[in-house]
């Protein structure tokens, strides 16, 4: 059988970095092919070349044996390539139908298009009303818009860039059902992810990229997740571990915490009650946008709470701001690295000063002790293996993973009594992620309490003692992670949000 798409020796270099180095792979019609690799391995650049967003420096592509060199996405779409983006390429203020029309060549009139959308969404079990405004849709629904946009063009090859990061396990299962249907109909799927179990469940073949090069191929069903992970990273991984601990006194307690969201499209917190003991790691899962940011803000002190809702060591701290809470021992590291956790254009020393001033005695009577701040920053860089020329570099100049190590390390080294982190290993490579998780566990072993908010369920299962899920601003009853199944977690996260299995 001739390949649907064959890449031969594709190379793309940007100043200072070779994003893709002689990458070759081929995909047969109906095949579900996984593209595996860590952040920065060159997956995105590769699919951008296939989709015509980036032109290769060298190498050729063939589709059905004929040369294929799309100059722009339009040409790629015309050749039958569809792409579902990782960061949704949708327009909030426009309706579903308008959004879909924008992604199509020769879009029909809106009324006819709405009919088609209804038909396709019925066929594939992806309910979607064409006249709704995209800004009002949930993350899962937005993804449906993207998928239907591709399906309407009858693609021969569908590229999916990390499609499951915003879905509950049940929604993932339904998505896979749809993808299997498509594959049975002969549509090839190029599936990018670093979630290895998903790839094992879905994909027929996998190509593994590391630092822009193809370092291996495998049949995911016959390969363990660990083997694939080690191919991705290129070394043997150690699993974070800690000795079993006995839990101490209650450190942090939330009693019926309810707050409206500070942002217009945010999620209010609804009656959240949970208590956290010394030495405990509480994992909080949930689909993005279900109150994670708001919960972090309520804990860090960015959002104040009325009396009686937030207690630290028995003292009501609801009215205290972030600095007062830091002094009291409650530290937080938010998800957004640039702009929230770190000031992009300030140096690492200055960023270390920003949150460390109070607990590390970096200021005295309003005067700043810069040598001490530099020492603190260098200690973070040293301890957490942050790759940067020095503490004088701007936060913006660090790669995402390195900056993540810095902002987490900055809080961990301040010896918190309670640490709250949101997405601690987001965008961090596997070995660095393991190091961060180990640091969080060590912190708990030493008697701190840690709240880890994350969308990575594997991570939560690995490090938490108890698990709870945020759904629509409500926190489920925490459950011990021993014996907790993915099925149960999915239900805690709110189930399938109204999706149904494709019925073709």
């Amino acid at each position, binding site marked *: 059988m001739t390949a649907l798409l064959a890449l031969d020796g594709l190379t793309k270099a940007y100043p200072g970095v070779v994003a893709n180095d002689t990458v070759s792979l081929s995909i047969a019609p109906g095949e579900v092919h996984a593209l595996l690799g860590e952040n920065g391995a060159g997956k995105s650049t590769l699919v951008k070349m296939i989709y015509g*967003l980036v032109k290769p420096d060298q190498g050729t592509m063939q589709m059905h044996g004929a040369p294929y060199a799309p100059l722009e*996405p339009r040409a790629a779409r015309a050749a039958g390539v569809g792409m579902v983006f990782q960061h*949704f*390429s949708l*327009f*909030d*203020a426009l309706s579903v139908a308008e959004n879909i*029309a*924008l992604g199509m060549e020769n879009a029909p009139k809106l009324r006819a298009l709405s009919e088609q959308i209804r038909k396709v969404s019925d066929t594939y079990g992806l309910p979607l009303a064409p006249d709704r405004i995209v800004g009002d849709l949930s993350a899962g629904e937005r993804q449906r818009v993207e998928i239907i946009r591709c399906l309407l063009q009858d693609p021969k090859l569908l590229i999916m860039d990390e499609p499951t990061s915003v879905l509950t396990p049940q929604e993932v299962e339904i998505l896979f059902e749809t993808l299997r249907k498509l594959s049975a109909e002969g549509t090839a799927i190029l599936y990018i992810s670093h979630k290895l179990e998903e790839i094992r469940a879905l994909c027929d073949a996998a190509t593994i990229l590391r630092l822009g090069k193809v370092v291996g191929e495998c049949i995911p069903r016959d390969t363990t997740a660990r083997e694939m992970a080690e191919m991705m990273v290129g070394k043997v991984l150690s699993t974070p571990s800690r000795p079993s601990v006995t839990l101490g006194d209650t450190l942090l307690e939330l009693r019926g915490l309810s707050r409206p969201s500070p942002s217009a499209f945010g999620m209010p917190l609804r009656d959240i009650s949970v208590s956290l003991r010394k030495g405990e790691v509480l994992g909080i899962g949930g689909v993005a946008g279900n109150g994670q940011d708001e919960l972090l803000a309520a804990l860090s002190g960015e959002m104040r709470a009325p009396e009686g809702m937030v207690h630290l060591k028995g003292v009501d701290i609801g009215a205290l701001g972030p600095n007062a809470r830091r002094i009291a021992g409650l530290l937080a590291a938010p998800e957004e690295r640039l702009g929230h956790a770190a000031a992009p254009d300030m140096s690492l020393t200055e960023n270390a000063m920003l949150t460390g001033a109070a607990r590390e005695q970096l200021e005295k009577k309003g005067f700043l002790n810069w040598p001490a701040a530099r020492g603190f920053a260098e200690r973070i860089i040293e301890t957490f293996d942050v790759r940067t020329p020095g503490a004088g570099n701007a936060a913006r100049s660090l790669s995402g993973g390195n900056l993540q190590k810095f902002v987490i390390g900055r809080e961990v080294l301040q010896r918190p009594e309670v640490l709250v982190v949101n997405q601690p290993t987001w965008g961090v490579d596997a070995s660095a992620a393991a190091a961060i998780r180990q640091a969080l566990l060590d912190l708990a072993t030493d008697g701190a309490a840690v709240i880890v908010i994350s969308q990575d369920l594997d991570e939560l299962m690995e490090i938490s003692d108890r698990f709870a899920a945020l759904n629509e601003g409500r926190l489920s009853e925490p459950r011990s992670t021993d014996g907790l199944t993915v099925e149960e977690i999915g239900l805690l996260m709110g189930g399938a949000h109204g999706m149904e299995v494709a019925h073709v």
Partner: protein
Amino acid sequence: MDLSVINPILLIAALMSAATPILLAATGELVVERAGVLNLGVEGMMILGAICGFAIAVETGSPLTGFIAAALGGAVLSLLFAFLTQITLANQVASGLALTLFGLGLSALLGQGYVGIKPPRMADFNFGPLADIPVIGPILFSHDPILYFGLLLVAMVWAVLKFTRAGLVLRAVGENHDAAHALGYKVVRIRTLAIMFGGACAGMGGAYISLIRVPQWTEGMTAGVGWIALALVVFASWKPWRVLLGAYLFGGITQLQLNLQGAGVAIPVEYLAMSPYVITIIVLVVLSADKSAAPGSLGRTFHASH
């Protein structure tokens, strides 16, 4: 005080004419902002259009050629803004302010030989017997062609934005330029075209002042109309018909307060003179209370990074 000297028919006819420069400039700016660009240089493009139109109309003797030259002048000046903000990625607010100052200065230079000259008059559009209908005739059918063009322009902009693919793409670029780029739309090209359209409209609005409203050339004669047009776009929630409403409201109250001054109403002139601004803002603020958000990418610099 004698209010009977105010003739309502002439008042309404005059307000349409008073509103036209704002209407033209605001409609152009609306398109620019729907494409996600904030061009604060409207005033500069208007005044340049005013002198270009005036000079060419005087030299050729044809007001229509003057208007075409005004549109070209405004568009060429807006290209400078497009170059600064779309190619060199300069800050849009600073570039727009610079454009206004530059336009004021350049127009004063170009206009040195034209002070005190009367331009050729543009004939009213001939509707034949329609113009003789009482009341309706003088109000609707006794104006110059540019005024009708302004109304047509609003209708066209509305229809294009709402019903055509070109309009959808333009709105998409203004809403989320990264997503539009990912789908393969040429963000910079589309925005440059929108900026030029805005420049041409502002230029014609300026020429309407120097050729029809006033008709003569004096330095700085647009006197802040460009800023009113800018404010109008925001308060009109980026909707063409509301821009028309706002422009007519502003023109109407300007005209009315002039008539009231003439009639000797016992209100200090300063209050009358500020009333168009105050009332227009109040009405449009009330109207814009329904949450019609600004274009998502408005004023943000687009760079097609890898």
